[in-house]
């Protein structure tokens, strides 16, 4: 490795490049915060514009939403354990935690896709009303992020299996964990201010 490796830091922070990568990713997450804020803005502005279509109270189901919430909260916890195992240098537990994280993410996605089918079945399609358009755009953008994360996370797991835990793979795995926790935070806001507010 060409860079000076600082052994007083966890591996993911151990080179100047690694620290910059992590800082840069926080800047990216800032842009993501603003992206989701604009989507929430659109939703809050249009959520009463249901036209002749259904309202949120009519189509939201608490059970699948609770399952999605539980899956994502647990996967966020598991990837935290994955990073912790990585810092202990424990490759196998780290990989197991990352794979479990991705499996719960996949479970979340399956429940969410099923929910979209249910909405369409009940006559709430993306062209039905401004409410459904903004709802599906917001949920869909989050779901697309989770989908992308499944591919990204799989690539990280493959690299760690092949190359082990080193400054480069630890950095990538840590940055992916930031992304995954961030998606959980966005979901908490969706759960609270779209679903629970709609069912109140």
């Amino acid at each position, binding site marked *: 490795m060409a860079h000076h490796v600082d052994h007083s830091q966890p591996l993911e922070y151990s080179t100047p490049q690694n620290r910059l990568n992590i*800082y840069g990713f926080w800047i990216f997450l800032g842009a993501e915060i603003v992206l989701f804020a604009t989507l929430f803005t659109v939703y809050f502005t249009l959520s009463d514009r249901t036209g002749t279509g259904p309202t949120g109270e009519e189509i939201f189901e608490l059970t699948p939403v609770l399952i999605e919430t539980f899956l994502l909260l647990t996967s966020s916890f598991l990837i935290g354990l994955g990073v*912790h195992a990585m810092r202990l240098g*424990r490759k196998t537990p780290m990989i197991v935690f990352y794979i479990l994280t991705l499996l719960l993410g996949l479970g979340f996605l399956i429940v969410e896709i099923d929910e979209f089918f249910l909405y369409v079945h009940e006559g709430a399609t993306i062209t039905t009303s401004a409410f459904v358009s903004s709802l599906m755009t917001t949920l869909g953008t989050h779901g697309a992020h989770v989908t992308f994360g499944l591919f990204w996370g799989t690539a990280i797991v493959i690299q760690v299996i092949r190359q082990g835990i080193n400054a480069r793979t630890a950095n990538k795995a840590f940055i992916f964990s930031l992304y995954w926790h961030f998606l959980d935070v966005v979901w*908490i806001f969706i759960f*609270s201010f779209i679903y629970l507010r709609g069912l109140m």
Partner: protein
Amino acid sequence: MAELFPKEHVVGFIGSLVLTIAALSVVWFDVSMVIGMIILLVTALIQAAVQLMLFMHIGETDDKVDIWIATLFAFGIGIVTIVGSLLAMVWGY
């Protein structure tokens, strides 16, 4: 085995489950819109803070001030966008 499950992470996870159930109270009980929104705001913000500080390790490096500035700046822009739009287009000012 126990070393793989650090206490703070387990406590944080249980905390996030408790906060989720606390947020559900707005659906289970007949609360007014204002009280309900306050409950949801408090539970969501605490949950976000748990994720940021515990799981995302936001405060553990020398550049933590820069990271906080970038994140809070983005959060501030988001809040201004949301509240400003509500003010102009929903609350009728």
